[in-house]
């Protein structure tokens, strides 16, 4: 009740009015032009421009009232409105100019395509995300963790391997993909290997930092307890590394999705989101491309937030949550 009250009487009514008018104008046009195949007149295009201006202006005004809210859901409102505004304006403009759907599909068309081909996309997503990205991610992260443990234990390995690990992060994985696909085959394991390699190096570098960037006083404390090396790792180094490990795990989710999708650009067994995007972009099936991108993005965000949630559960003590 309170936000409504504040919206009406808190000096934001003009913003909400503009926002409502703008959206009304745009939606009215979309409804009016739903079945038309003619480009709109310049007067109507002007109306779309006015509607967009109204939405932007209104948004700029009403966003002020969400600036200081502690509730993340309410704080998200301006961002949600921005996305909605962009989608509605794109829809109106594409309809006004009658841009062929083969070039830029309207958002509504993408949505209906998404619903139509969801079974295909879900199968693609299973191949890309579960078989390729997830398997590669788990293997790469575990190996990275082990390598970091070894490197942190032996100075020789640190000096000999760590510089390479740092270098590897600047290598473009696209160049790796064709070679690995050729070597291992076009089925999912080749992409899993690509993913494993891309997540491996950030994992090594981050975990190593977590294991070694320790306050000398803490190390002295351990020494005063006469803790042996295993105990030092168990009670000091590993807990200290946990936030760093989670960083790499979060970064890895994105890298894994990118690795799997880019890997599929170079050869796939007829399935996978990257394969779908590549094929459909080549034959102007952009509504399917967009649908695949939406699926990939939603999974990417969900995966990232899942790891983030785990992180909060396990490293709630860390400064970044205070």
């Amino acid at each position: 009740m309170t936000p409504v009250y504040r919206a009406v009487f808190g000096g934001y009514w003009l913003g909400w009015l503009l926002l409502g008018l703008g959206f009304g104008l745009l939606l009215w046009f979309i409804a009016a032009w739903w079945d038309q195949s003619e480009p709109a007149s310049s007067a109507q295009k002007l109306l779309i421009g006015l509607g967009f201006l109204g939405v932007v202006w209104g948004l700029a005004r009403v966003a002020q009232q969400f600036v200081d809210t502690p509730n993340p859901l309410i704080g998200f409102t301006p961002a949600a409105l921005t996305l909605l505004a962009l989608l509605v304006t794109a829809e109106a403009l594409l309809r006004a100019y009658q841009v062929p759907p083969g070039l830029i599909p309207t958002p509504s068309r993408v949505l209906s395509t998404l619903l139509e081909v969801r079974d295909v996309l879900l199968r693609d997503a299973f191949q890309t995300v579960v078989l390729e990205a997830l398997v590669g991610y788990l293997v790469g992260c575990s190996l990275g963790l082990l390598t970091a443990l070894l490197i942190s234990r032996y100075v020789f390995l640190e000096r000999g391997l760590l510089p390479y690990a740092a270098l590897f992060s600047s290598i473009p994985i696209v160049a790796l993909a064709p070679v690995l696909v050729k070597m291992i085959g076009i089925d999912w394991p080749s992409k899993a290997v690509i993913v494993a390699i891309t997540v491996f190096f950030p994992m090594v570098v981050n975990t190593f930092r977590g294991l070694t960037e320790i306050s000398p006083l803490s190390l002295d404390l351990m020494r005063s307890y006469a803790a042996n090396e295993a105990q030092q790792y168990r009670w000091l180094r590993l807990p200290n590394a946990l936030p760093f490990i989670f960083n790499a795990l979060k970064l890895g989710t994105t890298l894994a999705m990118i690795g799997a999708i880019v890997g599929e650009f170079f050869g796939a067994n007829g399935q996978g989101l990257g394969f779908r995007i590549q094929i459909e972009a080549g034959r102007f099936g952009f509504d399917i491309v967009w649908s695949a991108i939406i699926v990939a993005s939603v999974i990417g965000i969900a995966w990232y937030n899942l790891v983030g949630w785990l992180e909060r559960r396990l490293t709630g003590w860390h400064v970044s949550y205070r």
Partner: protein
Amino acid sequence: MRISPNLVPMLVVALAVLALYWPLMYLVNIPVAQRALDTGAALPCQTAFECATQLRSPVLPSPQQLWNGFGNLMLPLNSPNAIPINAAVTAFETVVGLLLAGVVGFFFAIGMVASRAFERALLPWIVASQTVPIIAIAPMLVVLLGQYGVQGWFPKAIIAAYIAFFPITIGVAKGLKSPDPMALDLMKTYNASPWQTYLKLRFPASVPYLFTAFKVAMTAALIGAIVAEISTISFQGIGKMLAENSRASDVVAMWVIMLSSAVLGILLVALVNWLERLLTPWRRAAGGAAVPAKQARLSRQEGVG
């Protein structure tokens, strides 16, 4: 010049990898060679062991093959089919894209620092973009731009910019917000104008963050440029060579290109590092501590604020 203590261990590791590579190469190639001999293909060799280093499509190329491959692909330095020119084109696209992203990202970052409403409206999407495989948009974008007559190197640079935009925006916004509240109060006691506060305080403070972001964005932009080259008809660039040789199944060439683009990626990031040292002299010997590890870490995934 001081010799790095890493040098000897790094050389030892490199030699160990090379020493292991030989037996591994024979191990994986001999079965393939045996199969090729069994099918009676015309090969310039008699035994599987001999053939293992001369296969047309080896699982792992022999060092000799790689060496020859480098010779073939590198040598006419100015040949349009050689790596140097193509790598230069890709590097050019990447750098132009990065600069483009830098300019646009800077304006967005200023907007987000100046207006909290603007930040509320856009930041969630910019942060979300960091968790999304935006590279997936590249094939479509490049076809689309081609349809509207944007061709040649420019669409590749645009895609590189598009990929680099998000990390740069987040990095710069973090940098602009990095000055201590006390330093902002100090500017207030001088009755400094907002413009002076940006010029004397926020911009210089954001430079280290900008470089940290550039290093992440550089690799991302390079991937973007290469994927863009692959996804469309290109006449030049690393991506075009990759696509061609991938289609022709020239495994040795693919290895050579892979190693070259690895070097290209490392060189481009080294370029940023060099520029950073050049342009932030105050951090020299401070151990690069101006952006503490924690902040670099935050800029990676938590975004601003």
